[in-house]
């Protein structure tokens, strides 16, 4: 690409990234936005600009809202690099990426990382069988191509589990059952945060509405499920579990697992930024201030990749981070930043007030955070929870050492689906905190790059 140095590069075209780019452009910055998908929207608003009427009715009004962001974004002067995978980011402002099998790079004075969330791992026996997908995957299938799995069984907990179930009902493919891990104890603990939840009453109402929809559709729900196990030979065939003291077994072709989402920290980890473990959200977050500034001067972060807050918070954070970045670049005065950001910061605080309630009500259960010995936790290298416990006995203290002991985290997914579990197990076994235990070190390239692509890139 050209040698142009952009003022600001944004990675991710979800609500956070699009809002950041628009805000920066409004204040006169030259902005480039890179995103893996062919269209802007991120996870929540995936394909919103080309969705059919049927898809809009299926996916609901919160989905349709995305067009109000994606349209002005596409019409703006922001340079949108779509369908590109970012596999390298440097503190010096270089971004390496691939598009259509070709590697390229751009440079910017400041980078805003808005890469969103990924689903928390759900290591239960049988979660690697074909036919077991994440609930988010099922939603991606609804949003792209309009595919639904009739009579699927959803397993886990969280607002997204109900949303996807209700969307499947609307698609005319109601799930067969919901096997939920949420317990009365979770609910009672969550009630402590009821004050905050009432401030976020819109979310509460939406949740209650979704559950009522499932009830009307006659979807069977089991709560406080334990000992969940999916079985099958070549493909998943049944889920068995214990609920209210009884054993259950439900047969199906498709099982959709979900235990909430966690920040996607691949880029911030590869940059060696500081991260901290969040005890309530049970995940690591990059450390950032109100404006999304990180431990690196040239890198800010916005949206779910900074900590889970949902789409409205992501859009506000994007604008706030852009203002912070513009001020760092001396393109706006500190007083302007504070003035424009003040109402946004207040609104964000209000929107965030529901989180403690949600995080407590749908907390992932201990028996899945740290599964029993026989359960595979590293899908790529088929390492079990028992293997990790054995490594601990042999003196392994952290995830990076665990790689040397037994390849966990060394497969192509780079620990995206085992990292948190490895940390949780090692922390418990060694008696250290999650922060002391640490997380997998992430190295470039973050996404697969072929030798040919890289050779051409290096020659440039």
């Amino acid at each position: 690409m050209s040698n142009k140095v952009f003022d600001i590069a944004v990675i991710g075209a979800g609500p956070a990234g699009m809002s950041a780019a628009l805000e920066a452009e409004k204040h006169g910055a030259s902005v480039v936005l890179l995103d893996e998908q062919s269209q802007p929207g991120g996870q929540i608003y995936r394909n919103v600009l080309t969705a059919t009427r049927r898809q809009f009715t299926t996916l609901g009004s919160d989905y349709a809202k995305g067009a109000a962001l994606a349209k002005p974004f596409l019409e703006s002067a922001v340079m949108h690099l779509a369908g590109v995978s970012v596999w390298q980011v440097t503190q010096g402002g270089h971004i390496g990426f691939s598009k259509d099998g070709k590697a390229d790079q751009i440079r910017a004075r400041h980078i805003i990382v808005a890469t969103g969330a990924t689903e928390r791992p759900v290591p239960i026996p049988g979660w690697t069988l074909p036919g077991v997908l994440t609930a988010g995957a099922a939603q991606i299938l609804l949003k792209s191509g309009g595919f639904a799995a009739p009579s699927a069984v959803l397993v886990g907990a969280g607002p997204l589990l109900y949303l996807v179930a209700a969307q499947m009902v609307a698609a005319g493919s109601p799930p067969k059952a919901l096997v939920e891990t949420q317990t009365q104890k979770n609910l009672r603990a969550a009630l402590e945060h009821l004050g905050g939840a009432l401030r976020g009453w819109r979310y509460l109402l939406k949740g209650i509405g979704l559950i009522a929809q499932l009830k009307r559709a006659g979807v069977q729900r089991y709560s406080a499920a334990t000992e969940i196990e999916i079985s099958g030979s070549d493909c998943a065939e049944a889920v068995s579990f214990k609920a209210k003291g009884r054993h259950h077994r439900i047969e199906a072709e498709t099982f959709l697992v979900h235990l909430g989402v966690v920040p996607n920290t691949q880029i911030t980890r590869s940059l060696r930024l500081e991260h901290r473990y969040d005890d309530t959200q049970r995940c690591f977050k990059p450390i950032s201030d109100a404006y999304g500034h990180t431990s690196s001067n040239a890198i800010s972060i916005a949206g779910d990749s900074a900590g889970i807050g949902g789409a409205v918070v992501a859009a506000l954070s994007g604008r706030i981070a852009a203002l912070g970045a513009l001020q760092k670049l001396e393109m706006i005065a500190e007083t302007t930043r504070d003035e424009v950001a003040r109402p946004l910061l207040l609104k964000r605080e209000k929107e965030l007030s529901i989180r403690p309630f949600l995080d407590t009500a749908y907390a992932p259960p201990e028996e899945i955070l740290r599964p029993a010995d026989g359960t595979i936790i590293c899908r790529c290298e088929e390492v079990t929870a028992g293997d990790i416990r054995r490594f601990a006995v042999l003196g392994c203290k952290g995830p990076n050492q665990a790689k040397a002991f037994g390849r966990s985290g060394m497969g192509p997914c780079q620990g995206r689906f085992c990292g948190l579990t490895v940390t949780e197990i090692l922390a418990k076994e060694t008696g250290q905190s999650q922060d002391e235990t640490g997380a997998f070190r992430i190295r470039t390239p973050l996404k697969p790059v072929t030798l040919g692509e890289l050779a051409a890139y290096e020659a440039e």
Partner: protein
Amino acid sequence: MFVSFEPDAAETVVFEFEGQKISAPRGASVAAALLASGRPSLRATPVSGAPRGPFCMMGACFDCLVQIDGVTVQACMTSVADGLVVQQVPRTMSETQSDHMNGDGGFVEHVK
């Protein structure tokens, strides 16, 4: 199994998987098309030979690997196209390939 809830919406394309012709709506990913054709399982793992198929559909888990023109790609991040020839990843290949593709598997060291 996944089925389309908009059977007559989009234009369809025809591609090939392991020599069999499969039609899918234009714009769908290879992984979505294969799931909708009743193929949840796409490969065998290099370690134990266990069957695997698409899991996350967003490019994070790498369980959906297939081969197109001899290159291993994520089926969920690749769009279907007319005449596209998709094959299973040979079981032994997926191990070496994964080493080459991955930041931690020594790929960067190879290049240096």
